[in-house]
């Protein structure tokens, strides 16, 4: 049976792991390859690097991170942020990544998803959707708007319709982040996840709002997510990947057990 994946996300700036709140007060937290390797040994089912390097001339630094990680951690690697062309995606894959995640670039140029899927296969193309809840309208189901540039830019795209569209365009997986919940620790937006998972056949990765193991269980059970992603709670060691998997297993969800933590 297909296991529900637990995925730590590392924010990488100029080749170093950083953490901060809403991209401010960034602090250097070490070498991404080293941290990724540690997560892999602790049972991470996949690693996501989010490249937040602002300076264009420093963009290549993430390739070195991927190369060094792929040489020692034998788990799937995804890179998000900064990839804007087929050639840039090829460079990331050649460095050892398995997938590339598109966010702002997909909104600006949806055909990019198709071009990359035709060249590398849908399984390598992830579309990241950052969504914000629209003001509630009495008597109607909740709706969400797609936002870009880390939530600063509204797009007028309705999130569920956008999810359906990007899958038609070639995305093989969706990384769905609730911008209302991101950084708040108030749990994943399971309504958003379920609304999207109910309309697409590709796997949905839940992101934004995780505070404890129960939130991960809810994202899979109520949000119908195939995978759950978090950054802060793993970096701060509030909870380990093993804690999260134990809670999921206790709730009857299939997870991959690794020797480090299996009884």
């Amino acid at each position, binding site marked *: 049976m297909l296991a529900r*994946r637990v995925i730590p996300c590392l924010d990488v700036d100029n080749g170093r792991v950083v953490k901060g709140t809403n991209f401010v007060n960034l602090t250097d937290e070490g070498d991404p390859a080293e941290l990724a390797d540690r997560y892999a040994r602790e049972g991470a089912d996949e690693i996501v690097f989010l490249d937040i390097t602002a300076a264009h001339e420093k963009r290549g630094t993430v390739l070195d991170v991927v190369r060094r990680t792929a040489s020692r951690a*034998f788990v799937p690697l995804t890179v998000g942020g900064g990839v804007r062309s087929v050639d840039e995606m090829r460079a990331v894959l050649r460095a050892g990544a*398995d997938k590339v995640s598109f966010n702002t670039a997909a909104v600006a140029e949806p055909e990019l998803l198709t071009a990359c899927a035709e060249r590398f296969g849908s399984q*390598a193309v992830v579309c990241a959707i950052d969504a914000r809840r629209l003001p509630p309208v009495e008597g109607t189901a909740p709706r969400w708007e797609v936002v870009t540039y880390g939530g600063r830019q509204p797009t007028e795209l309705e999130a569920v319709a956008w999810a359906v569209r990007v899958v038609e365009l070639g995305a093989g997986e969706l990384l769905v982040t609730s911008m209302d919940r991101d950084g708040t620790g108030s749990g994943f937006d399971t309504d958003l996840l379920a609304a999207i998972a109910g309309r697409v056949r590709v*796997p949905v990765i839940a992101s934004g709002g995780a505070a404890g193991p129960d939130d991960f269980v809810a994202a899979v059970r109520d949000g119908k997510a195939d995978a759950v992603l978090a950054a802060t709670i793993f970096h701060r060691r509030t909870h380990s990947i093993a804690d999260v998997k134990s809670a999921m297993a206790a709730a009857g969800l299939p997870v991959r*057990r690794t020797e480090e933590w299996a009884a």
Partner: protein
Amino acid sequence: MGAGGARIAVLDYGAANMVSITRALATVGADPVVVAEPACLTDVDALVVPGVGAAAPAMDHLRERGMLEPLREWVRAGKPCLGICLGFQLFFDASDEGNAPTLGLLSGRTVALESAPTLPHIGWNSVEFVREHPLFDGVSSGSYFYFVHSFAPAPNDPSIILSRTTHGRPFVSAVAQGSLYGLQFHPEKSSDAGLRVLANFVGVVNGSRATPAGVA
């Protein structure tokens, strides 16, 4: 892990993450060399055909490089060969993905995963053994391996099947016929369990090496 030293050619035909497979083989003690031309197949002990993506462009690429016949000859000569994911699917007669004729080394067709709750089938799934095999030494039936695919081969000869995995319906996740091995999952992305399978493959290659002592 294993005696090591086996020279293993990894076929680069533009459809695979070459870093992961070569580093994984090196980690289990083999000496991997990336090859893109038939001439490079001399002087190696085994061949690995990796790959993700679609069958038709992969076959086109192999044809353009003049690799189709050397690959078939290698397998017909009984030399060790391991196909991974798309590489495994190419061993069969044809693929429904783009209706492409493939290598015809194993009898059967590659067909779309039926009744799958999600597609592509991405993630860690359990591999249930059908029979014992040296490739799975030290690995328990039911262990998780990483998959990423939408198609899987349906072998005509059930005796080659080593394992099945279920996503919607059961499909064949590993086969062996003589020195030809195929894995639908990615051992190079399957952490310790995957490295163990690769180490076992290297062990099989070392066992089949007929190099007399003293000959480099």
